[in-house]
């Protein structure tokens, strides 16, 4: 069961998202209305913590548990980073959730969020259909 560790890490992530109220639609509205520091604080401190860990991994050449070099692949720029990014931002305001919180909301009993999740999967499917025709 090599995948159990991913289930456990996912559960940890979902639990943190739930307890920190990151999955709250209201918190996301508050962020875009510049009414509260909460979401900015979460995002910035998450980046800083992760950046320190990534730095240590690189600097000290820390290996993953499986003995391999930790895979840190660079991301390449496409116009999609901007166009797709803005589209996602619009959806983020509407659903009040990015992909992680969609899953966490369903888990915490907000069954209706299944609608938004199915629609997100459909959105990815339509992107796959149109990919060759879109500017990248």
């Amino acid at each position: 069961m090599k995948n159990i560790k991913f289930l456990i890490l996912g559960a940890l992530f979902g639990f943190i998202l739930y307890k920190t109220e990151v999955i709250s639609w209201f918190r996301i509205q508050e962020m875009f209305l510049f009414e509260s520091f909460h979401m900015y604080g979460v995002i910035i401190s998450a980046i800083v913590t992760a950046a320190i860990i990534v730095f240590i991994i690189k600097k000290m050449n820390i290996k993953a548990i499986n003995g391999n070099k930790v895979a840190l692949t660079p991301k390449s720029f496409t116009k999609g980073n901007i166009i797709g990014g803005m589209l996602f931002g619009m959806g983020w305001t509407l659903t009040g959730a990015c992909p992680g919180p969609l899953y966490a909301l369903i888990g915490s009993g907000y069954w209706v969020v299944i609608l938004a999740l199915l629609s997100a999967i459909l959105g990815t499917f339509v992107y796959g259909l149109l990919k060759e025709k879109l500017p990248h």
Partner: protein
Amino acid sequence: MNIVEYISQPWSWYVGGPLIGLTVGLLLIVGNKQMGVSSSFRHICAAIIPRKIKFFNYDWESQSWNLWFVLGIVLGGMIGSTLFLSTSPIEITEGTKEHLRELGVTNFTGYIPSQIFSFENLLTPKGFMFQIIGGFCVGFGTRYAGGCTSGHTIMGLSNFQLPSLIASISFFIGGLLMTYIVLPLFF
């Protein structure tokens, strides 16, 4: 106060944020994987859709860790909302409430506004906009952008990736456009 009560209180940003960063690190070291949630939508499509479409014709099973991870997120939400349910309501600022009243939201309990998000509202203009168009933009936009808040904003930025910075700024601009320009046009 026992430990369960202690954990059950809503967490401050300075508790949750660093823990999210730590999870990114654990995933790198324990699983040797870069965090990213939106890829799961692609894997789900690849798993259920016939192999004719190029974008979905790949060995998704080799990426199945990602599906286990998102299943875990569902489980995490479940554990949080049952064993560690918080009794205190989410404190939203008065300014936010005022703005949301204009959108017809007057009930501020729970994590999502029941006046917009419901199966009955699926075909009302507002319900369709927030649930269906919103979800569609999340799925289409994240894949087009090559990642979401976890993959770009947290994982990508912590690894100093310029495309992730461009994407994250775009996420934010899109969110502001929706909040201040698009939504006021409709509702």
